[in-house]
């Protein structure tokens, strides 16, 4: 019987990859952020996941405006990183879990989620950086993945309510999965930030605190805001919190416990956060 061990959330700012590459973890600018990962490493060593279901967003690597899915689900044997336009060193590849991908897709389409299935999918820093942060010293990732990409580029975006429902449908699907994996749920991106426009640099710690406080006990509270209100509150790219909301949904409807939180301003243009949640009851699938 598969088990959902918990959920890990973190920001995925591209500059973090550069800091890792240059070994700046103890640099004063970076230390308050990287220090938040000691507890993550400890937790992962303890819960030992072997599969990760990851909610993230593409930044113009795998998807363009010719075919922009609201919800894309990976069903590939492997996922590669590629040049995102800056000629940076490539991140390690990921092994897919195609059987679990198709199990989730079957359930999601039956539950009236109109997903786009991706039997090839490039992944960008939004997926790689959270893994580099979580498992900093490995040659190959210790988990297979099923990646979900949520549209945070082309408005209209899916509502927070819809993203939470997507996650919960994934949770329902896991209940009928016959494997015996230890599954970690991952949500990446955010928190508040805005890269574009005259309001560039906008950060809102109060809204971020509202999100962090409610994710464990009352994630439905995050669905009270429309996408427009979320942009107002968290910035044009702060809407990446949608990935966190979907990931929280995949943990199930029951309350969860926050076992770790780190929040730091700024990393690059962003309020950076790291969070670990564990389901209050052991969640068998």
């Amino acid at each position, binding site marked *: 019987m598969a088990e959902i061990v918990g959920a890990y959330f973190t920001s995925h700012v591209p500059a973090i990859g550069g800091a890792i590459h240059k070994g700046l973890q103890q640099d004063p600018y970076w230390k308050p952020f990287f220090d938040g990962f000691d507890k993550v490493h400890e937790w992962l060593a303890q819960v030992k996941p072997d599969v990760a279901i990851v909610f993230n967003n593409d930044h113009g690597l795998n998807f363009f405006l010719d075919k922009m899915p609201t919800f894309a689900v990976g069903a590939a044997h492997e996922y590669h990183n590629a*040049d995102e*336009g800056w000629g940076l060193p490539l991140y390690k590849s990921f092994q897919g879990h195609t059987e679990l991908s198709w199990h989730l897709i079957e359930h999601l389409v039956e539950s009236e989620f109109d997903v786009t299935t991706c039997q090839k999918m490039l992944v960008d820093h939004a997926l790689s950086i959270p893994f580099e942060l979580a498992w900093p010293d490995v040659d190959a990732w210790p988990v297979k993945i099923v990646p979900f990409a949520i549209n945070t580029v082309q408005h209209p975006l899916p509502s927070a309510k819809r993203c939470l429902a997507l996650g919960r449908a994934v949770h329902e699907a896991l209940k009928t999965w016959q494997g015996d994996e230890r599954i970690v749920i991952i949500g990446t991106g955010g928190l508040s930030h805005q890269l574009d426009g*005259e309001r560039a640099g906008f950060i809102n710690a109060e809204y971020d605190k509202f999100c962090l406080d409610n994710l464990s006990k009352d994630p439905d509270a995050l669905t009270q805001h429309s996408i427009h209100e979320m942009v107002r509150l968290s910035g044009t790219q702060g809407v990446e919190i949608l990935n966190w909301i979907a990931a929280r949904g995949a943990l199930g409807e029951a309350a969860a416990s926050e076992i770790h939180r780190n929040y730091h301003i700024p990393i690059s243009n962003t309020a950076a956060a790291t969070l670990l949640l564990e389901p209050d009851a052991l969640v068998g699938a």
Partner: protein
Amino acid sequence: MTAQQHPAPIEGTHLFDGIAAAKGFELNAMCYSFNEAANRAAFLADEDAYCARFNLTSDQREAVAKRDVLGMIAAGGNIYYLAKLAGIFGLNVQDVGALQTGKSVPEFKQFLLDQAQQIKQLEATHG
């Protein structure tokens, strides 16, 4: 059309909706091409020819020529794609932020650092 459904605009913020996307397609398509190193080199070798190949509108071409980020956004550019163009010019997101807010780069960086005060204010309020 769709505009009527939208609530009040957010100051200094440009939602990349269908209207923007329809206007910006060519510019964004060019920027998306910069995922490939050969295309970045081709742009640097002959910017005019490369822009012409993607049929940029005159507004888009002018904004690119002037490295005018707000102009690119007004012409339908999306920041996720524009960031790849900015990279060609050696600009990171703080440089781009400074350009858009009329600050110097050190000023924009300080502006970001100063926002850490929000945390202290919150702690003071919530205990």
